[in-house]
């Protein structure tokens, strides 16, 4: 991908296509490059979905095998924190979409601002997640071997096979959390490129693609939140 500044040449006449710096030489037109870029990104996103689906299938199998365990253990999760994180992620999805829109209309300043808000939300999400995790670790609500519940909510003791739930909980939220952390990285990268002036009305593809990735992270959380917290 070209990292050159976006300054399309004004050579619309003549036999040769205008070939701005951001247009790779093997593409005929910006539209062709845009389509190819998006196709590649969607292939990656579908792969991500299939990758996450393994965890969702594990969830389905174990929840069906141990429904009571899942209900009991789910009540140990904090709905308020999970709900807050849902709103934070949804809002960051909105700002990511608005960042793309700003890039589409060529408003560089607004693009940068929206990207920063998105990054801030991503960080807030991880901070809340950190508090949740430390609480779980404190109460011994851990996967497999480390499962030793104490200081838990409610009077009823947790079932002995609760480690199955917490294995799935930590795996799903953990892998999702890694995606959030990666998202912060790529959003920062795009923010820096935007500041450098790489993007324009004619060329905003990287902003679009990174936003697509960010929406996917949101998409996975949309399912994780009710399935883990709201049983």
């Amino acid at each position: 991908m070209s990292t050159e500044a976006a300054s399309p040449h004004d050579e619309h006449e003549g036999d040769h296509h205008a070939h701005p710096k951001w247009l790779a030489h093997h593409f005929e037109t910006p539209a062709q490059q845009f389509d190819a870029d998006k196709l590649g990104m969607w292939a990656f996103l579908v792969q991500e979905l299939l990758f996450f689906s393994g965890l969702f299938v594990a969830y389905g199998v174990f929840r069906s095998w141990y429904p009571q365990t899942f209900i009991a253990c789910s009540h140990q999760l904090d709905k308020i924190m999970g709900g807050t994180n849902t709103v934070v992620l949804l809002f960051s999805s909105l700002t990511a979409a608005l960042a793309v829109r700003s890039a589409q209309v060529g408003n560089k300043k607004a693009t940068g601002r929206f990207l920063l808000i998105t990054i801030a939300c991503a960080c807030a999400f991880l901070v809340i997640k950190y508090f949740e995790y430390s609480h779980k670790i404190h109460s011994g609500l851990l996967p497999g071997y480390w499962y030793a519940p104490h200081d838990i909510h409610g009077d009823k003791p947790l079932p002995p096979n609760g480690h199955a739930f917490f294995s799935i909980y930590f795996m799903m939220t953990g892998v999702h959390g890694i995606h959030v952390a990666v998202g912060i990285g790529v959003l920062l990268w795009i923010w820096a490129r935007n500041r450098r002036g790489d993007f324009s009305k004619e060329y905003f593809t990287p902003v679009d693609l990174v936003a697509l990735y960010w929406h996917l992270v949101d998409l996975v959380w949309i399912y994780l939140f009710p399935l883990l917290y709201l049983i």
Partner: protein
Amino acid sequence: MASHSNSKHEGGGHGGHGGHHDDGAVHAHISSVPFYIFIFAMLLVFTVITVGQSYVDLGKMNLLVVILIATCKASLVVTFFMHLKHDNRFNALMFVSGLLFIGVFFTYTMNDTERRGEIDETSAVWVLPKTGEHAPGGLDVKVQEERRAKMVKEHAGHGAAGAGGHEAPHGDHHPAPGVTTEQRH
């Protein structure tokens, strides 16, 4: 829907980057800011509904309702935030076929895990843990009955011979049923 009144097209192309009918420039659909905020508001409404629903016990419908609400939210995100509505249709096709394969993954896996029998301790035949009926597949009932007779005989032998028989295999390689049968419902 509101999407049409709240959004405008730039450059006159309607999702027009699929063909070469124009100058080759990118003519992506641009939705208005209020429209995006409207979608966000809808997502918030669905979030409030799903959290509220979690305080109401709908029994077996719980999971279905939860998945339904989440899918509504996901559809909004995919259609509008991720631009699939105005995007090249091929991207939507890829996305939907991905979902299809996830469905295959779920169906085939759970078709197995939901129908696995377990050895019932008292009758020594394969049963479905949820219903107690004979598990489909595997050994037929006659063979199972023979095994049962053998198992009963072995247990009787152990009783007479006293201790020392703990290492004796049950005659099959299936996992011991004891713990899991009790924990499952």
